[in-house]
């Protein structure tokens, strides 16, 4: 039985300081480019936040270059994103409308910020009737800059770059459960039914079809655990009270309790329909994780480390991960035989894994800095503002 391998263990230095810094320079410049406009046009809180986040992202990238490991440093960013997104978002909601609940008049006026989770549910109604079943606005407005078109633009552009790696470098929800999963030293529940990994596909199919039939985003109305830490329909009657109860129960169960017990991202791996949807884009993404069969000793550390059970004994024998691999790097970092490697499709598995890793990381980290970095900066600025005021 393989131990619950921790991909976060400190790795020996992989590159020299100078070479690592040289490799970090492009990302440092990218951070400067991304944060300079906000820095120049924002108040003092946001300026400090932009500086802190730009430095944070650059230091993490440097550590990736220096140590040759990915998972641990990505996780620092990702957990920070999961924690700080609700901070900034809730503070904005409270400032604008006084509470986290969204009243019906806000939905009628198209003021609901668009969430990418809705995307798969939009497809059938939009294709058949040219109708978008979301109470937002198509174009950005003064009261709703997060319009449907703007968010679809961000999502599609980033998906072209990341594929399913969206779930490791862009999703501002996954970090919450990744943080909880990182807390215990050992998993209390080690044996998980492998069929659980099929659940997101079933939920995706169900919510897409139900949304098309009921003409409303069913997942958002009934099943999204993250409504608990973002916004939810105002509780007006028994139905909306039940919806809120389901959101809270799913959040506590899938995002808090099960990650603590299993050390897995249980919401992402066993529930999230958007994650299943994103898995489809792994087919067209050029990067993946492969296993070098000449080096693999079947120790199972990669399977144990994978937070979403995207690796099975059979898949390792075939030299691949499953379709739901989110390229977090946990398996690569945990493999002591260097059998799990980053890979560019079409190239030899035993070729140049570090080149593949660098090509992937530059794109992924650029996206993380652009999208997640702005979210982090907003959260940090909110905290600074809150501390300074009190």
């Amino acid at each position: 039985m393989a131990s619950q391998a921790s991909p976060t263990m400190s790795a020996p230095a992989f590159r020299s300081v100078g070479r690592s810094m040289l490799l970090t320079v492009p990302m440092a410049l990218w951070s400067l480019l991304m944060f300079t406009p906000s820095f120049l046009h924002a108040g003092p809180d946001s300026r400090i936040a932009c500086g802190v986040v730009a430095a944070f992202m650059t230091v993490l990238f440097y550590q990736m270059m220096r140590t040759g490991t990915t998972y641990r440093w990505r996780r620092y960013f990702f957990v920070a994103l999961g924690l700080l997104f609700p901070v900034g978002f809730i503070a904005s909601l409270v400032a604008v409308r006084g509470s986290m609940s969204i009243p019906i008049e806000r939905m009628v006026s198209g003021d609901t910020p668009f969430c990418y989770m809705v995307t798969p549910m939009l497809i059938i109604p939009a294709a058949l009737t040219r109708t978008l079943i979301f109470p937002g606005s198509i174009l950005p407005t003064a009261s709703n800059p997060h319009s449907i078109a703007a968010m679809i633009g961000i999502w599609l552009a980033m998906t072209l770059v990341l594929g399913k790696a969206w779930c490791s470098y862009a999703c501002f929800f996954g970090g919450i459960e990744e943080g909880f999963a990182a807390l215990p030293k050992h998993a209390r529940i080690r044996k998980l039914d492998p069929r659980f990994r099929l659940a997101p596909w079933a939920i995706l199919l169900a919510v897409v079809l139900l949304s098309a039939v009921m003409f409303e985003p069913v997942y958002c109305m009934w099943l999204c655990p993250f409504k608990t830490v973002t916004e939810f329909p105002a509780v007006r009657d028994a139905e909306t009270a039940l919806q809120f109860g389901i959101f809270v129960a799913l959040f506590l169960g899938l995002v808090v309790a099960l990650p603590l017990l299993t050390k897995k991202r249980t919401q992402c791996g066993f529930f999230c329909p958007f994650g299943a949807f994103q898995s489809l884009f792994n087919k067209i993404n050029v990067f993946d994780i492969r296993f070098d069969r000449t080096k693999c000793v079947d120790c199972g550390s990669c399977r144990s480390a994978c937070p979403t059970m995207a690796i099975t004994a059979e898949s390792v024998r075939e030299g691949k991960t499953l379709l739901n691999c989110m390229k977090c790097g946990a398996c690569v970092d945990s493999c002591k035989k260097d059998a799990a490697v980053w890979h560019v499709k079409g190239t030899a598995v035993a070729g140049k894994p570090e080149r593949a890793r660098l090509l992937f990381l530059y794109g992924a980290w650029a996206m993380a800095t652009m999208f997640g970095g702005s979210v982090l900066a907003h959260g940090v600025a909110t905290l600074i503002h809150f501390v300074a005021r009190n």
Partner: protein
Amino acid sequence: MRKRILAVAGYVAAALTLFVALSVPFVLMGGIAKAFAQAGFNLAPVYSGGTVARTIERNGYRIQVYQPVRPRPFQNGEPFVQVAFVPASALPAQICEEIDLDGYGRPDVRVSFAVPSNPQTPMRGDVQALNDRYDTLTGIGADSYSRFLARTGDRIVLRIPLPRHD
């Protein structure tokens, strides 16, 4: 040879991905958003109220009467017709209007509500039916998508339920 071609193609695709990543904030994101916005999609009428059927001009403001909105077979909610008073900032303190909802030339309902000076103040209003196709409703506020009165931006939106069999 084939392996080499595949490897070169793989690296070219990887480099293109990097190029795409760097173009996201400058070109790609806005381009996709613009293309999406111009693709001719509409918001679901239960949220947007549908399309304006006709506009009634009043002294300093307009009354927009929308096409009736009917939920699809398995969709939640009741059918309704939306009426918008725009701009809200130009409305008198008290509205009392007889409105022809179906366009047959006779008023169908009499609508009355106070226009609060503070846009944040919750609104309540009454709808008196002038024929038997509509129900008289009192104390309408932001109750549901089909029974609704509230200020949204610079307009006051009223939604009056329609009979299901209509």
